[in-house]
């Protein structure tokens, strides 16, 4: 865990990519039911979780995000039939690679959230924000390039 002096005022930045058909609707449902979750979570709408390019995830970290979460329809329920199966393979390999590079594996996550799972969306976000808060600011991806020692 990295503790920095400005951690007093530090708030984690979380980017949540949500597929339009399930998870984005699930997030809407959380709103409709007035279920609270941390405001650190900012949602980006994509048509399908398979639209999420690893470049977007790295870009988020590059620009200072502390955690990136990807939400899609449950496997088998994809609006486009097979999209989330591709997401599953791509993200498994990408996350494994980030872990291999020594990036904290807790900073990236994939969760399947259906349009009916407003509560689950909230639970997932609470948990994820808690996890990122514990980890602190994300530095490692940036630091991969600067040799400090």
């Amino acid at each position, binding site marked *: 865990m990295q503790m920095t002096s400005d951690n007093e005022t530090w708030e984690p930045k979380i980017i949540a990519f949500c597929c339009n058909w399930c998870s984005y609707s699930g997030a809407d449902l959380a709103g409709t039911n007035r279920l609270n979750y941390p405001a650190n979570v900012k949602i980006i709408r994509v048509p399908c979780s398979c639209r999420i390019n*690893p470049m977007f995830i790295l870009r988020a970290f590059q620009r200072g995000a502390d955690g990136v979460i990807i939400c899609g329809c449950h496997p088998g329920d994809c609006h486009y039939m*097979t999209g989330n199966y591709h997401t599953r393979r791509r993200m498994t*390999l990408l996350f*494994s*690679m980030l872990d*291999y590079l020594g990036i904290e594996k807790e900073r*990236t996550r994939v969760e399947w959230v259906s349009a009916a799972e407003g509560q689950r969306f909230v639970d997932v976000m609470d948990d994820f924000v808690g996890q990122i808060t514990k980890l602190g600011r994300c530095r490692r991806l940036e630091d991969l390039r600067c040799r400090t020692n």
Partner: protein
Amino acid sequence: MQDELIKRACELLDDGTVNRVLGWSTGDFFYDITPTVFGSAEDVKKNFVYNDFCGANLSKYLIAESQKEGKIAVFLKPCDTYSFNQLMTEHRLKRENIYAIGIPCDGKVSAETLHDAGIHGILGVKRDGDDLVCDTVYGSRRMSFDAAQDERCRSCKSRRHVVYDELLGEEGEVLDSHRFDEVEKLEAMTPEERFNFWQGELSRCIRCNACRNVCPACNCELCVFDNPKSGVFSKAASNDFEDANFHIIRAFHVAGRCTDCGECSRVCPEHIPLHLLNRKFIKDIDTLYGDYQAGEKEGQMSPLSAFTEDKDAEPSIVQKGGIR
């Protein structure tokens, strides 16, 4: 072997089977090998070389060469044939314009390894049993061939050609390589150790793009990093993050397509073990989705394009202890 290759190349040029030959010639030093297209038998006889330093994979050059008028002969070492097949799968080669000649290979050496071992002023090398004897300006020096050869050759995955029109010499076997040993060592480290390792390696990157330019899988018309419209455009690192970004994205783009030819690490002027990134993807794919060797057969579906409905691991496997 070199004489045999030259003889065959001249025959093919003389009988009109091909009008060009893709092979190797030397640069300023005899160990400074450059892939070269030869247009005549005279040229071949004069300049063609095939020796222990001819590690360069010629497959990628065929993308441009096979588009040209007339047929070209190419000499392919076993690992080059995998790249050849992968390029065929991706419809990058005009097969009818290529005459592929498989040639055997028992490991290649690079001058850098010899320099690193303290052997300088090399005038010539020859094999003597298991050793490599170097004739240098400082006299004769000897080191074991195993130590002299490239890491990728030490952990060679196959000496079998997967495609050719004609084979010179003896066909080899698919080997039981230990190419994932290094990856496993890294996996066994703590995240901090891994991070420090990669920090040490990647921080040396100078973004010369040699890895990308030599990689047979990196054959885009325009690389996303050179394309201002792609959103990740960066010719050189503008902030500390971008080289890491470059290498992760590059590894991801070639995941499932990389044949593990090892050219990226061979050409890296900073000796960054880039092949360890690719091998991690290969190892994960083998573990999770079944053994897959890119380029083994033409027309294979990449494991990143395929999926199973109920057997694929969830991404959370990484959090739960990783893919081992």
